């Protein structure tokens, strides 16, 4: 009993951290309608800032000046974030705003990686390290101070929103932006103040919570997942509930720590079952979505922008043949490192294709695709290790298991859509990664799980096959050819899917679910099939990953990589096969990053930074992505040529004036 009390009180610390980020998320959502996935990232930035000022990395200041500078820095981060990423997207679709926050997160992470490396930093604590004794239990006093600060901030925010003109205005604007505008309130100013406030809350938590978290580029940013769970329980509106739920989640997490020391707690190779906290956060998110209503409170916004267009491929076979020949030759001719990069690019293309189907065609953003690839990869490994089942049966089973998982997530997507789905799948990605992949029995832990070479009828198709290309090095072009065949076939499949009647049905569902039902389209069926198809494609990518590296490990399929993948897919063109190919070329360890690294000495983390910048730029300038921009300019040229030789005006044939713009009743 004493220990339970001890752990519950210790949990106040991480609870305060989660609550702080949750309150910041709510603040930001109410202020500007953005679910900011980068909220934990801001905490991290401020943490790094304080550390570097205090510990001699940049300066060796005293606590107070360092704190002041950090606050100013956080404020500037908030202003920059608002001006560069969020204000230009004020009237964009909610999904675009969410993806923009993803870009902010990537930029924050990549810049800290570049500046300070990936090792953990010893964050100095500014709270007293005394111990107080309560009911015979010794608890560090900073836990209470932290919770006290968060509760004070929450009370302050509640008061600010309830009793000031600013709060009233924000509430009005979040109810209905149009009428707020008519009432003479500037949505831009309100949004700016709220964003800066949110940044300050998140930032100060990042500095204060040093004693309960680590300072690195992953821990703090990913605290956004339990924080989202708390914020969703508060329906993204109530500060008090968000704060209480955050503290509650922290206490439960701490109790899980306690319970996992018990003998009856399930273990995995002698260590307590990993990932239970992440699983809990995911379950809370799902429960919040289902119990408290699938729909987030929506805002009356000025303009609703649609997702980027989905052009049809005019030719499929011809570009496919050209691509195949070029790549097949390149695989033999290129030196080994470029050969490897080309193979990575092709696998990245397949990964992006799965996003083209689910996000581009059906408009459902799914962060879980890379985790599905991981499921397939680990299945291939365990088929071989545990059951002796190898190529070609193992990858088929792997893809099938990925489809099962994808369909299960698709079932949940029948009730949640858009932004909510992105949050659910983010929770799922984190849970699958930590609960599944890190587990050494089911996954591979951090050491990885081996994958044997693919072989059929005695012919080695793997990376170590006999034929080694011109320079005679690993990996073998034979494996590259196999990846090429799979990639080209899947590209053709997705392109013809778009042209066919199922593609039309997916786009119909994306455009208008109500009208789809009236057109006799089974919306649930279409979504479920689309989820399965994209899970299948992700699963194929996962098995290729597995054979490519000869082993599978958890870090390759982690949530941070998954978010980067979405950024690259968006930048390439989320609605196009050619966009997926472009995304493949710029993805991690692919051709473009490799060339920059080799010739210009620009390391991979720079590319992550570029990824974030390109993502935001794409959202602002070319929502259809790089490939879409190409396509558009080609269409425009074609239209101009057609206009030079005009055909008979279409309206003339109708024999009556074209209907006037109508007055809708």
């Amino acid at each position, binding site marked *: 009993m004493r220990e339970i009390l001890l752990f519950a009180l210790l949990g106040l610390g991480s609870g305060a951290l989660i609550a702080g980020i949750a309150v910041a998320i709510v603040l930001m959502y109410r202020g500007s309608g953005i679910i900011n996935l980068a909220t934990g990232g801001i905490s991290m930035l401020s943490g790094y800032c304080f550390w570097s000022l205090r510990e001699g990395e940049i300066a060796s200041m005293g606590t107070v000046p360092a704190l002041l500078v950090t606050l100013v820095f956080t404020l500037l981060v908030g202003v920059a974030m608002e001006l560069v990423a969020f204000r230009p997207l004020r009237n964009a679709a909610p999904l675009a705003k969410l993806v923009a926050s993803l870009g902010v997160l990537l930029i924050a992470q990549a810049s800290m990686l570049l500046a300070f490396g990936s090792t953990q930093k010893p964050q100095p604590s500014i709270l007293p390290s005394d111990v107080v004794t309560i009911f015979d239990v010794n608890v560090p006093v900073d836990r209470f101070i932290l919770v006290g600060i968060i509760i004070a901030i929450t009370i302050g925010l509640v008061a600010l929103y309830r009793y000031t003109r600013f709060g009233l205005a924000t509430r009005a604007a979040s109810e209905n932006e149009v009428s707020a505008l008519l009432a003479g309130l500037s949505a831009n100013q309100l949004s700016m103040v709220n964003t800066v406030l949110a940044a300050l809350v998140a930032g100060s938590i990042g500095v204060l919570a040093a004693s309960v978290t680590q300072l690195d580029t992953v821990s703090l940013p990913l605290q956004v997942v339990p924080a989202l769970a708390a914020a969703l329980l508060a329906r993204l509106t109530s500060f008090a509930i968000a704060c209480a739920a955050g503290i509650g989640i922290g206490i439960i997490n701490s109790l899980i720590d306690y319970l996992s020391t018990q003998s009856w707690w399930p273990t995995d190779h002698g260590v307590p079952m990993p990932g239970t906290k992440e699983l809990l956060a995911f379950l809370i998110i799902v429960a919040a979505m289902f119990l408290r209503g699938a729909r987030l409170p929506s805002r009356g916004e000025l303009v609703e922008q649609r997702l980027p267009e989905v052009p049809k491929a005019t030719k499929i076979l011809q570009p496919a043949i050209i691509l195949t020949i070029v790549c097949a030759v390149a695989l033999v001719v290129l030196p080994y490192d470029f050969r490897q990069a080309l193979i990575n690019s092709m696998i990245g293309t397949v990964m992006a294709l799965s996003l083209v189907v689910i996000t581009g065609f059906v408009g459902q953003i799914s962060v879980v695709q890379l985790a599905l690839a991981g499921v397939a990869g680990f299945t291939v490994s365990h088929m071989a290790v545990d059951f002796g089942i190898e190529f070609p049966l193992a990858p088929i089973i792997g893809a099938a298991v990925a489809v099962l998982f994808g369909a299960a997530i698709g079932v949940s997507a029948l009730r949640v859509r858009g932004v909510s789905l992105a949050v659910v799948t983010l929770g799922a990605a984190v849970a699958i990664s930590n609960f599944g992949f890190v587990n050494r029995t089911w996954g591979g832990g951090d050491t990885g799980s081996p994958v044997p070479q693919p072989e059929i009828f005695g012919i080695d198709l793997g990376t170590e096959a006999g034929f080694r290309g011109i320079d005679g090095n690993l990996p073998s072009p034979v494996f590259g050819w196999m990846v090429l065949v799979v990639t080209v076939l899947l590209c053709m499949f997705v392109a013809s899917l778009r042209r066919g009647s199922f593609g039309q049905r997916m786009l119909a569902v994306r455009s208008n679910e109500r009208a789809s039902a009236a057109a006799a389209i089974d919306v649930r069926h279409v979504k479920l099939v689309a989820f399965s198809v994209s899970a299948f494609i992700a699963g194929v990518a996962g098995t290729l990953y597995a054979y490519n590296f000869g082993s599978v490990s958890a870090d390759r399929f982690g949530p941070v990589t998954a978010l980067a993948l979405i950024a690259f897919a968006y930048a390439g063109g989320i609605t196009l096969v050619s966009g997926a190919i472009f995304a493949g070329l710029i993805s991690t360890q692919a051709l473009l990053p490799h060339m920059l690294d080799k010739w210009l000495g620009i390391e991979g983390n720079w590319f992550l930074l570029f990824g974030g910048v390109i993502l935001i730029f794409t959202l602002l300038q070319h929502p259809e992505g790089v490939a879409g921009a190409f396509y558009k300019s080609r269409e425009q040229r074609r239209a101009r040529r057609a206009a030079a030789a005009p055909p008979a005006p279409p309206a003339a044939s109708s024999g009556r004036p074209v*209907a006037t713009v109508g007055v809708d*009743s």
Partner: protein
Amino acid sequence: MSAVLETSKLSVRFGGVHAVNEVDLRVEEGQLVGLIGPNGAGKTTCIDAITGFVRSTGEVRLDGEDVTRLSAHQRARRGLGRTWQASELFDDLTVRENLLVAARRPSLWGVAKELFGAPVTKTEATERALELVDLAWAGDMRPTDLSQGQRKLVGVARAIAMQPRLLLLDEPAAGLDTHESEDLGRRLRSLVDGGQSMLLIDHDMGLVMSICDHIYVLEFGKLIAHGPPDVVRRDPKVIKAYLGSAAAELADEVDGEPARAADGGER
């Protein structure tokens, strides 16, 4: 004659409001039935209930078969084709694809075959439907490039292309001028004369009175009258409830002048 559509005690409640209150409708095979009533009378809600877009009580029978428990897309599949006041098109598809996606329901095998062959770009039904609303020239355009009135016609064409047993049109003529509205009326009438059963909601009294075989009048969710146009227009309850000040102009119409007063009076 047999009934294509029959509702009995069809009711919809929104909180404490009875939006549709025990409505019994009947559409015979090959008949054009009008559904009229003042604003907020529950006409659109009635169509929503028949086609399964709103939770309702009572019974809906299509060709004698109870479809009350079926979802919206299943009812559409059985032959209830509808349009909306706001055209609700698929803006990501071309006009022709809008029709095609509603008209065709290929099997899984058909979808698989399409992956290898050239996709179907039009069918007889889509072309006929486009022809009927005079939009064949716009087939390859995006709905967003059309005017509001044209968008509405695309919605009508999409429902027609499904070759439904019963076509339910929610104010297809709103947004069209007098000339176009009359033109549309003639086309709809010819469709009905070809055997299509139809339920029509419209504010344009001239249109409804001139083309319908039978008219139902709703007020506050309740049916207050029904019968052939001549009977309904003389019904004192209808004149009082629905037409009010427009009654005088209605009398004009009896003398052969088209009346469009209700149109303006309602908005």
